[in-house]
């Protein structure tokens, strides 16, 4: 594990970006969020905020409540207690499509591409919010529906170009490698035109060159002003790209700070980077 932590500093991208910004504008603010499934408490009064344009990485062992937290933010799961604010608006209680319309998009750990559609159609669904065409104008194929369809298609192809999968546009998602599927999922999330991107273990199952590619994309997105919240248990990759790191353990926030601070945090090393890490698959 020590080796991993040492490696962090050598990983990717200029330091300047990593340390940019702190509290100028809070895009997302999570305060005192608790959640339990029956008797099992998954999150205990978790609070944090993400500044606009930052990359927040949330680490913690499996079962620490990270994925649950992402689903609560996007509205897929209701929260028991606490408040979530996005762009100065309270969003807890909103449905996922409402938070999506406000500018939050999510890439699931298991991607969940639509297997009954081609790759480009998957991304076109991501453009759903960019158009308004309804049943009637689509069924009658009115001029405005055709215009919309064309612009949706072009927007989707642009996203596919961004992730480098243009030539796979008409393939079924099942024919792509896991890493490529992640990229399609990312393209679909980006197509929503969101400001906050929630990535749930985006690196899991990726090959090393795919990891590099994803890192590059994430930096590119950040430089375009995207705010990103990443949940991972692979600490070594992420320390290099995070502006800010949060550590969750059994539903509790046990540490918060810059990557360097986290590496030195005694509690983190004990609780998380200790024995648990050995059990994590693939890390």
């Amino acid at each position, binding site marked *: 594990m020590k080796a991993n932590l040492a490696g962090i500093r050598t990983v990717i991208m200029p330091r300047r970006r990593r340390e940019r910004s702190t509290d100028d504008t809070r895009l997302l603010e999570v305060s005192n969020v608790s959640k339990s499934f029956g008797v099992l408490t998954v999150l205990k009064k978790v609070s944090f905020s993400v500044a606009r344009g930052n990359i927040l990485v949330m680490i913690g062992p499996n079962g620490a409540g990270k994925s649950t937290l992402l689903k609560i933010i996007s509205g897929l799961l209701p929260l028991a207690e606490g408040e979530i604010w996005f762009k100065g608006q309270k969003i807890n209680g909103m449905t996922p499509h409402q938070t*999506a319309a406000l500018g939050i998009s999510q890439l699931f750990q298991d991607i969940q591409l639509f297997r009954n559609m081609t790759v480009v159609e998957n991304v076109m669904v991501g453009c*759903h919010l960019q158009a308004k*065409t309804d049943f009637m104008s689509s069924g009658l194929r009115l001029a405005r529906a055709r215009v919309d369809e064309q612009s949706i298609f072009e927007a989707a192809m642009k996203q596919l170009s961004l992730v480098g999968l243009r030539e796979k546009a008409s393939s079924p998602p099942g024919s792509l490698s896991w890493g490529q599927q992640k990229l399609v999922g990312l393209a679909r999330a980006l197509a929503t035109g969101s400001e906050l991107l929630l990535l749930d273990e985006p690196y899991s199952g990726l090959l090393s060159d795919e990891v590099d590619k994803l890192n590059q994309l994430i930096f590119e997105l950040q430089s375009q002003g995207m705010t990103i919240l990443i949940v991972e248990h692979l600490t070594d990759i992420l320390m290099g790209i995070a502006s800010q790191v949060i550590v969750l353990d059994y539903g509790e926030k046990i540490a918060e700070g810059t990557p360097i601070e986290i590496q030195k945090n005694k509690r983190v090393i004990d609780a998380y980077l200790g024995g648990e890490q050995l059990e994590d698959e693939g890390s």
Partner: protein
Amino acid sequence: MLANTRVIKEIPKRVATAKRQNLVLALFAIVLLTIPLGASPYPLTVMVDIGLYSIITMGLIMLMGLAGQISLGHAAFVGCGAYISGILTTKYDFDPWPALFLAALITGGIAAFIGRFMFKLHGLILAGVTLALNLVFYHLVSSLIDLTGGAMGMMSIPPLSLGPFTSQNLFFNYYLIWIIAILLLIFSLNLSDSRPGRALRALNVHAGGSEDAAQVVGVDVTKYKVWVFVLSAVYASLAGSAYAHYTRIIEPGTFMVQLSAMVALMAIIGGRSSPWGAFLGAGLIVGLRQLLRESIPVLVGGLSGSYELIAYGIILVVALLFMPQGLISIVRRAAPRKRAVLDES
């Protein structure tokens, strides 16, 4: 790279598919519209039946096949169309055409109202509720005697007419029903390949979609379920109205659960993945029904009614075992160009 994206406006394969589809559509329309020339009344009557069932089934394919939802009570909407048309024309002196469209509008409204509550449910419970709706409809129609004639039904519903022709004329009626069916087919095909169509496919968990993934990209899942339910109800209502103006007599028993089960069967057998499946499903089942009606009395003596139901059951089981994707999958396999496309990818 950006310049490149601007040049390519469409994926060539997509254009090819669209072109081929238009060709098939044109051929299909030509064949259907030339059938009556020189045909005797009996096959035309059967074809009218097939057309009516196809329209209902197509709506159901949009609901079940495209969006992955279920309705085991669609006969209620067919009945709504038929009865509203009947009531408007006989009690309120409406002309048949406005009655037909108004009936579709009202039925759609009813479906929207019910759908808002219904689609908070899932799976078996949802299926149960749709079934219950059908029963409620039956008893409602049977008991509102002043309006609907109760169990006796309604008589002397005026036929639809266009210039000198009325739907009492078999040829006119054939064209009327099949033109509606073809127009709805075009509507359905257009819709499937569009923004709302993709949203519907995205939430179809049975075909590989994901409600969660659809929601986080901004698809209002409940709204789309309600809308496709409304759409399928409107198709059913149009078929119901056309039926009422064609037979001119309606009774509540026609719109019982048996009809719901039958159109669901047609949708499953024809193929849930494409509106084209409606014609295959309706054609096969109606064709078999005619065959059974003629052969069963000869084979076993007596009436064919209950044997018919047994036969449907057997067909359904066999169909689900050997072609879970429906007849349409066989047609697709036979089309060589489609396979080439799949191989490439």
